């Protein structure tokens, strides 16, 4: 474990997590969630869990983001009521 690297990644993870729930636009929230997944992936990799990091990168950052975008394509920009 490399402490400075770990701290930097941790700060980015927290920033991305807070930003994803505070931002108003849904598409931006999904993109920030994808960035969060990549930082989590880096964190798993530097902790030595390469298999978990691989799964996080492919499932959460790859397919999960795409599925969320597909769901957002079904919504409209303004609410109807």
């Amino acid at each position, binding site marked *: 474990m490399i402490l400075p690297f770990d701290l930097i990644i941790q700060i980015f993870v927290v920033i991305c997590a807070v930003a994803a729930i505070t931002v108003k636009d849904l598409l931006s929230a999904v993109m920030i969630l994808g960035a969060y997944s990549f930082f989590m992936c880096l964190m798993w990799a530097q902790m030595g869990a390469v*298999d978990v990091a691989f799964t996080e990168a492919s499932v959460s950052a*790859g397919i999960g983001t795409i599925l969320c975008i597909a769901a957002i394509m079904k919504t409209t920009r303004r609410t109807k009521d």
Partner: protein
Amino acid sequence: MIFRKDDIIVNTISRILIPFIQLYALYVIMHGHYSPGGGFQGGVILGASMVLLLLTRGYDEAKYKFPEQIATLFSSVGVLIYAGIGLLCLFVLGNFLDYGKLAALLNVTPSHARSLGILGVEIGVGFAVMSVMYSIFLDISTGGVLPEDEEE
């Protein structure tokens, strides 16, 4: 519903990138038993390449490469490969998914048979995961109603 947009950058990048993504996914599946990765991760990457094809070309073109019926068939075939290898081990008087007993059938040493058995299981998992990911994306993006369903 996703339609094709005539954007030259998107079309060219997807055409160049899709074969390499699929090659990498096959590498992850084939090396799953001695390196990180395996059937699930490789299947997800393979499914992501199919989803990229669907996103950039639209379902009207993607249905000639990978129609939804084939995706449904492949998801069942993947489970069949997994369960079939497990049941084959039962037929040669081993436990379920006990690949070492397959050595007599494959005419190799038991350790080699274990390696081949886990490879076959991972290929099955990869098939199932790829087609299920594609089906989930297709169902979410179209709302469960495909164009050919509306024509009937």
